[in-house]
């Protein structure tokens, strides 16, 4: 496998791809699923961050995670139509779709961003879905974002920047540099 050497280590790490998940407090119950450090018991490469509602997630945070070494990010909310906060999961579903389209224009595989919807007692199905997501991401080459150092690659995100708005740009400021290689 000669081409493996060219790949940055993040995607081809021994424990699988690095995945960050945002988990709604009211969706899948995290007791028994998560270790103390936030990684999932069955999938140590997946770290879950608890949030008050899936709609709380800013799409910019998903992009932030991808730019900082995560190979995949997902948001998990309650089943569509049954959000504890009425529309949070529908909203994040739409926002994830928009983010996927936006990042696809920046040559990021949109499959790296996921939206899952599982209820409080659907822990097993949730783990299966995350495993499937992780496996899918594991099959993708390279880091989520092309390295910034070469000049032609840097033009991509810069030209798309006005679309994300000034604030979203602020959110990524200082983030990408230096950490691409981890």
């Amino acid at each position, binding site marked *: 496998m000669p081409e493996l050497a060219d790949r940055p280590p993040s995607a081809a790490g021994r424990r699988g791809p690095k995945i960050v998940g945002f988990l709604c407090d009211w969706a899948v119950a995290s007791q028994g699923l998560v270790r103390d450090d936030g990684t999932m018991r069955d999938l140590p490469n997946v770290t879950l961050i608890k949030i008050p509602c899936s709609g709380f997630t800013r799409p*910019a945070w998903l992009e932030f995670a991808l730019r900082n070494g995560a190979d995949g990010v997902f948001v998990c909310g309650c089943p569509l139509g049954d959000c504890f906060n009425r529309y949070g999961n529908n909203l994040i579903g739409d926002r994830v779709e928009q983010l996927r389209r936006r990042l696809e224009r920046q040559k990021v595989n949109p499959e790296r961003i996921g939206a899952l919807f599982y209820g409080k007692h659907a822990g097993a199905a949730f783990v299966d879905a995350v495993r499937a997501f992780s496996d899918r991401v594991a099959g993708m080459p390279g880091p989520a974002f092309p390295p910034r150092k070469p000049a032609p690659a840097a033009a991509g995100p810069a030209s798309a920047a006005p679309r994300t708005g000034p604030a979203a740009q602020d959110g990524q400021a200082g983030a990408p540099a230096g950490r691409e290689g981890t």
Partner: protein
Amino acid sequence: MYKRLLAGLLAATLRVDTLVARVYPDDFNPLYYTGGLANLFLTVLVLSGIFLFLYYTPSFDQAYTSVQFLTLDVPYGQIIRGIHRYSADGFMIVVLLHLFRNWFTERFRFSRDEPWISGMMLLTLTGFIGVTGYMLVWDQRSEALVAMTANAAAQVPLVGGWLRHALFGGTGLTDLLLPRLLFLHIGPAVGLYVFLWWHYTRIRHPKVWPPAVWTLFALGFVVLLTGLIPVTSQAPAVVSQRPQTLAIDWLFLTPYWAMRFLPPLVLIALAVVLIGYGLYIPYQLPETRSELGLKDSGVAQVIDANCTGCELCYYDCPYNAIVMVPSPNPGVTKAAQARKLRAVILESRCVECGICVGACPFEALELPRLLQKDIHEKVLSACQS
């Protein structure tokens, strides 16, 4: 005890959801639309009720014959009357489903007590409207209902006589009875819309209508029932003789059936206790987030410098907790320079869900104890581990 029971009921409710989800996609799960279905039935009830009202004569000698004329001689009268009757039953069923679903899934928590309390009042009014509707037909059942209700009302201590007078216009059967009952049927139905307004004030984009499939199914089912089991009146009321039997509609007339076994005063006390308990449900579990094992993130705060007045948070807040007000000064960031409006949080309505944070692309909203900075730190530590 109650907490464990509620947890079990929540688990059961979610299990039912997953079962239904095997048949219907999430967006069409009828259990997610009990409120919208109730509104659908209410609309049908109002429209068919207007039709019935045009033919109804509220007097002792003509009430029964006018209903018979409507049923037998007016084109489609039988169908409209059946639709009115069966929609009322459907209304009661979906309202009860709505009640139990929102109870078991704990949708009364935090600042959602007002929809709950207005909902209890809607339920009480619904029961009352249903009973007065059965009285208007003025067949034997109506007469029995009036007699039993008057008897029960008169037994209430202190206000009994007044209550009976208020409901039926005096002792015995007075000429006022049917006009008063007609008002007591239609007036509270208007009151339903007042309470519905209260029910909706704290809800952004309420699901007031089910998906078209369910609209058609509910209407079709009602019309089908109308054809299969036509609604008929019983024998006309004869004032001189008390009716001996009572045909029960279990959704509305269960208390009258219970009068066989319990004295009316006990039933009235039971009703008061039930309604009182219903109003108390949101305050029975005054748990804070930390007691629930959740992070207490604090009420959302607007960062004035960044707010551009774009209204995205205002549209997305599910509880109408954000209002846009004229901005006295421009913001600090470039995007906020030209703003005309700025967002203001109504803290009493905020449930700390953070949906506004996700809605804001200008970083003008934060949960005080779960800042974007904290999320960034968590993401970074997750990526580095």
